[in-house]
């Protein structure tokens, strides 16, 4: 095997891990940090994708559309938290069922509004040559986006006042209220943050993953498994688990079939969970 081929496989593994990490970060905040099982996470991604699509079609540049999509999805998330999630804190399985219901409502609404097939946004395709092979430059760009996004989120949650207060509220809401933190407001903001990240993911991935009503289902499985495998040290865990699972699945997929890649992803998760039922970072001593 030539070196350029290996390099391409490596890069494409890294980029598909990046795609997974980008799609998972929102869930890492909502499920990993807040402990809210949001099965509609995939549909939040779809929500962002369609928002970006609609905004781009109306003539706004794609880069601005991505930001708009993130903000709109965050707002939508805030409403969902106020109307549904808030009543269900502490009732894990009920949250799961309700958000599942929500995911179906969003899916079907998307089918009704946009139909089941939508055109892409027609970004100019450009590729980077590596020896005899090429790799999409947008995919390489996504690798950078993933790195920037993870660092930004880490900064937000560890360095800013909001981040510290939010982490306190999530870790122990009773004690948080006992030092003056109004957990209700903070929880809405954090849920909105997670939703916004999902919306951002849907939008930024749009050139690589076209918007379809069912796109959420594909993401939600892997995102959940990644966060569950990640464990309590959410952000670092997510990056590690996402990197490992995403690239392993990609390697199998590039040598064999996508389905085989998916199956490997699933089997690997099962194996990791059997070894680390509470996630790979369960015994780690880190803050995020």
């Amino acid at each position, binding site marked *: 095997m030539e070196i350029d081929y290996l390099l391409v496989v490596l890069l494409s593994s890294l980029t598909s891990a990046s795609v997974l990490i980008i799609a998972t970060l929102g869930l890492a905040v909502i499920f990993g940090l807040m402990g809210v099982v949001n099965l509609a996470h995939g549909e939040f991604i779809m929500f962002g994708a369609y928002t970006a699509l609609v905004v781009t079609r109306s003539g706004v540049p794609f880069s601005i559309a991505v930001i708009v999509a993130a903000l709109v999805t965050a707002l939508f998330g805030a409403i969902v938290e106020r109307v549904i999630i808030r009543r269900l804190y502490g009732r894990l399985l009920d949250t799961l069922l309700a958000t599942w219901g929500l995911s179906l409502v969003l899916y079907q609404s998307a089918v009704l509004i946009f139909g089941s097939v939508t055109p892409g946004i027609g970004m100019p395709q450009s590729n980077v040559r590596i020896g005899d092979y090429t790799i999409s430059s947008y995919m390489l760009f996504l690798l950078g986006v993933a790195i920037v996004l993870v660092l930004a989120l880490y900064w937000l949650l560890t360095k800013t*006042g909001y981040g*510290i*207060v939010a*982490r*306190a509220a999530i*870790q*122990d809401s*009773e*004690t*948080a*209220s*006992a*030092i*003056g*933190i*109004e*957990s209700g407001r903070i929880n809405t903001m954090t849920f909105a943050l997670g939703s916004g990240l999902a919306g951002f993911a849907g939008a930024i991935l749009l050139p690589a993953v076209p918007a379809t009503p069912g796109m959420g289902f594909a993401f939600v499985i892997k995102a959940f498994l990644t966060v569950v495998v990640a464990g*309590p*040290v959410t952000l670092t865990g997510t990056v590690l688990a996402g990197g490992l699972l995403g690239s392993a699945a990609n390697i199998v997929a590039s040598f064999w079939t996508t389905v085989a890649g998916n199956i490997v992803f699933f089997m690997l998760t099962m194996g990791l969970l059997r070894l680390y039922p509470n996630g790979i970072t369960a015994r780690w*001593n*880190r*803050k*995020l």
Partner: protein
Amino acid sequence: MFKLTNATGGYKKTTIIRDVSLSIAENEIVALLGRNGAGKTTVIKYAMGLIDAFGGSTSIDGKELPVSTAKRVKAGIGYVPQGRNVFPRLTVLENVAAAAIACGHNRKDAEERALSDFPMLKPKASVLASSLSGGQQQVLAIARALATKPRILILDEPTEGVQPSIVDEIAEVIRKLNRDKGLAVLVAEQDLDFCLSLADRAYVLDKGVIAREATKSEILSDMELQHELLGV
């Protein structure tokens, strides 16, 4: 200044404390004594709005406090919960910062003050709170409560599982804050000596009601009462 009037409350339908009334003046340190299960923690949780109130009220300067715990903290009650409950995956300074930020105070000032009040936290400033020892966690919980700039500090069993040297240190700091800044303190304790080293006056709680009120010298001279309190 701080007053509980006819406090009656408990969990769901079970009433645990009944008609508890107590008051604490500015500059005063008051102890809340009683055996295991007498209802000390419940009284404190009542004051913080953390349990169901069936009757009575909590007030500062004659003004009744809102129901929300967070708002009570902002109104001037600093709270150190039983079992400390530091945020395990926040660093020591972040624990302090969270309280300061939540109450709208300057983060840097709060952090600096915490380290100067409690020098033992300095070497641990940026480690996770979960890796502190029990005594250090207790100190952190107090530093955190002080970061909300309270007018009254309420401590629930601050000596539980804390090594004696740190207990002494805690007592020293509380006494100093009381002396220098006029901080009022309510401390619920089983550790009689710790209480008496601080407080001039105590309420004795038994089976959810105030059984008696006594001054320090009354308790010190009454061996019977001492033994009853300690269950020894």
